[in-house]
């Protein structure tokens, strides 16, 4: 054994205690010094490898590897014959990874469910400021239909909505969430019937009908338009 082979044997867990290596170290002070110097690290590797010698030996061999076989089906593998079709049963060798992946999948499912709920709630309260999302879904109550049927133009339809839903007296009696809904309903009216945003509509109203109140609130506008007293200054 030469010095090069001695280093190979020294770093090979099976050959580290071999007779040939011991003989070489006895006759080679240089390699013996090197072995002494490297002993702590080599001992630690030996201990760790011996300790984990039967690491995960409990995984049955006949089930090992099914996971990659299953995944490989995703890729076109023409050589898969029915007899060699990958099994899809237990996959114990990947149990921890599977648990992790399953946990991630569960998390994704929960997130997707929550997102669905959020989307449904958003649709109910119409988060879209222009109210275009459910433009065809509004069925007006009988009172609204009576008031809007008499109107001939889009301007008047919207003005009717504004007058009823943003007027001071009715808003004052509403709960905060109901006020929000009232305002959103008007936003939808403005969006569909006038094809503009509420802000644009209010700006237009301000400039055309009440030029002195540039910062008029919807309540003030409603009062201004329909001759009612202004109610709460804010929605």
């Amino acid at each position, binding site marked *: 054994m030469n010095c090069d082979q001695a280093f190979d044997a020294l770093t090979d867990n099976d050959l580290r205690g071999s007779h040939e290596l011991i003989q070489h170290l006895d006759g080679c002070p240089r390699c013996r010094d090197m072995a002494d110097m490297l002993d702590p690290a080599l001992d630690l590797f030996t201990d760790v490898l011996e300790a984990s010698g*039967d690491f995960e030996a409990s995984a049955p061999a006949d089930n*090992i590897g099914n996971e990659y076989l299953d995944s490989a089906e995703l890729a076109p593998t023409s050589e898969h014959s029915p007899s060699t079709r*990958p099994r899809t049963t237990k996959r114990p060798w990947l149990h*921890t*990874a599977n648990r992790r992946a399953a946990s991630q999948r569960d998390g994704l499912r929960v997130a997707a469910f929550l997102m669905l709920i959020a989307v449904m709630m958003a649709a109910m309260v119409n988060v879209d400021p222009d109210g275009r999302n459910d433009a065809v879904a509004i069925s007006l109550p009988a009172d609204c239909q009576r008031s809007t049927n008499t109107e001939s133009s889009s301007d008047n339809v919207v003005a009717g909505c504004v007058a009823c839903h943003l007027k001071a007296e009715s808003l004052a009696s509403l709960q905060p969430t109901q006020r929000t809904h009232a305002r959103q309903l008007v936003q939808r009216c403005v969006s569909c019937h006038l094809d503009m945003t509420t802000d644009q509509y209010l700006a237009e109203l301000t400039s055309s009908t009440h030029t002195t109140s540039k910062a008029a609130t919807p309540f003030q506008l409603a009062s201004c338009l329909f001759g009612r007293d202004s109610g709460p200054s804010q929605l």
Partner: protein
Amino acid sequence: MLNDQEIMERVRSGQVELFDELVNRHRASMLRAAVSKLRNQAVAEEAVQDAFLSAFAHRHTYRSEHSFRGWLWTILLNTCRGLARREFGRIDRAGGRPESPTAVEPSSTGDALSRLVRAEQTALLFRFLNELPEAQADALRLRFFGELKFDEIAHVMNCSTNGAKQRVRSGLERLSAALRRADVSSIDARDISGSDRSEGDNQ
């Protein structure tokens, strides 16, 4: 008994179920190396799984004149690097710190104390490996966990055989020096605590 290359040839020719045997042979050592490199058991298992998946999916790219272990471990190291970038990048962005190395559960045999000692030894080895330059640490992982020959290590690390030996040797020297320092400091700590106790006893 078929060797790795022969099994891989048969897998390539359609006997895909034989790949189980390759997984069976190499998984434990690959997992040990991945845990030591990624410092996280779950991510390491993902790396090993991905490496096997990748090896199987790209089995047609394997050339039988090369070592199968070298090819497989090259895939593993590349997978580990990719996962490390993803995982530790995520941790860095979150302002956290990576997990400390999770010791691969040693043998279930033996008493509680010996299991504890082995777990500590494993954790110590993984910690010191992570303090080495990556090339040296990988060379040690390939040599001791993967049991690759030096020419296989050279192929994986894209260096000469002598270069691979030098990396292993340098890594072992640094590791030994760190272990000696740790041993000395623990002896010092024991001495200090012992002297404190004796002073307390005297008082």
